[in-house]
């Protein structure tokens, strides 16, 4: 069989090298898990032995109980669903509108020259400072929260995607023109496809930014959502709710990031 021959041809040094690599990877994973489990165990122990006050620090078992209880009465799922929907709407809209704006600015360099200083200033401005204004304008509702999430990600998307568009090799654009291609074809055949990695990267960054916008929005106006649960829990001193929400947020953010990383891998099979 060919594969047996293949295995035989691997030298001793190579096998040792591969084993070392495998061991190292194994050690990294083990320590990561030990740290995670150890953290929660220490937290639990500290609370049980009254080294910390579980009333203000909460404790893993209390969080778990709170989670099970809220899961049973369904309120936990409503909160998660609300935040998830707002975040997804925020980063999808932010990426979409940002990319469309970047296309517009690429198309018309005069407009982009005019817009440049405004983009720079808006980019450095903390967008959450605009949240109260948005709420006054759009009302005490979910639309405002999505708008805040969108605002946090849209400007940085415009800037990074436009930058990607402008960095496309001029000779590749010339290639399209040589065949008599129009500006729309330059965009469709070269500039846009060359920047799909850049847009997917923007999408990844926007997941995090959109969460910031949603949580701030929920702090201000919401009646449900994890941000609401955090604020409400801290006001009524239900730290179990607060800590639980933070942990769920961390898990959601990680899952979404992984989802986009997966999408990236699917879309970019032409890369080495």
């Amino acid at each position, binding site marked *: 069989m060919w594969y047996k021959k293949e295995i035989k041809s691997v030298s001793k040094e190579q096998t040792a090298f591969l084993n070392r690599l495998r061991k190292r990877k194994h050690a990294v994973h083990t320590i990561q898990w030990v740290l995670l489990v150890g953290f929660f165990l220490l937290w639990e122990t500290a609370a049980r032995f009254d080294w910390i006050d579980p009333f203000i620090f909460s404790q893993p078992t209390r969080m778990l109980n709170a989670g099970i209880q809220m899961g049973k009465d369904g309120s936990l799922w409503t909160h998660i669903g609300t935040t998830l929907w707002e975040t997804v709407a925020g980063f999808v809209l932010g990426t979409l509108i940002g990319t469309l704006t970047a296309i517009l600015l690429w198309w018309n360099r005069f407009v982009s020259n005019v817009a440049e200083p405004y983009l720079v200033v808006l980019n450095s401005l903390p967008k959450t400072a605009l949240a109260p204004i948005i709420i006054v304008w759009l009302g005490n509702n979910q639309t405002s929260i999505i708008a805040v999430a969108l605002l946090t990600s849209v400007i940085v998307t415009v800037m990074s995607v436009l930058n990607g568009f402008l960095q496309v*090799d001029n*000779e*590749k654009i*010339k*290639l*399209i*023109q*040589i*065949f*008599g*291609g129009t500006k729309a*074809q330059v965009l469709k*055949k*070269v500039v846009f*496809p*060359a920047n*799909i990695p850049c847009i997917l990267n923007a999408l990844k960054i926007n997941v995090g930014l959109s969460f910031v916008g949603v949580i701030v929005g929920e702090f201000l106006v919401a009646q449900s959502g994890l941000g609401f649960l955090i604020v409400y829990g801290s006001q009524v001193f239900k730290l179990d709710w607060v800590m639980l929400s933070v942990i769920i947020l961390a898990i959601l953010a990680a899952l979404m990031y992984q989802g986009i990383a997966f999408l990236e891998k699917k879309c970019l*099979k*032409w*890369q*080495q």
Partner: protein
Amino acid sequence: MRPIVSLEDVSLRYHSINGETLAVSDMCLFVQEGEFLSIVGPSGCGKSSILSMLAGLIAPSEGNISVNGEIGYMLQKDYLLEWRTIRNNALLGLEIQNKLTPQNIAYVEELLDQYGLGDFKDHYPYQLSGGMRQRVALIRTLAIRPSILLLDEPFSALDYQTRLSVSDEIGTIIRKEGKTAILVSHDISEAISLADRVVVLSARPAQVKRIYDIHLTTDEYSPIKAREAPEFREYFNAIWKELDVHVV
């Protein structure tokens, strides 16, 4: 016979913030159908500008340019689009010109098969060697069935070994397909080995300094064999002197 390409008293000026540059001055040049013309000149003398004008990418400031045929243009690098397969890269020109007919697609498939890329049609550019990529670029150019090929130092991105074999290959393909070709190069040997005529340009502003008719005695034509012809060295020395290259 009416020339297929002619430049009459063509001048070109570039404008920038720092002022005006005369890149090409009063150039006259005629190319006959089926001819392989090489243009050599000191670097930065405006050789590429001449090709850009012929391709209609920039307009001359003065003078007349007439081109009687479809132009195919090969750039300095292959510029294959990384996200397209080899087949789709080769079809790019047809796609842009809305000529994706079954016959044209079959023609491209045939060219790919014929020039050793048949097994790589569904591969991506990063999986191919430099020489193969250059061949794909040539097929992409040939796909639109141009009668005139413009070659802008198309081998300059390759290492010397690959460059020799690719220029041999591509030169042979162009002869075989019976195309008119205009090659811009700074490599004197390459220019002589491929061409029927070599045009030597002056430093900027580019003007025709001298034209050499190349007659090499070889049994069978191939650019690599051409380098072994007894006359090769004489042409090389003459053009080298004409170019007046100063080694600093």
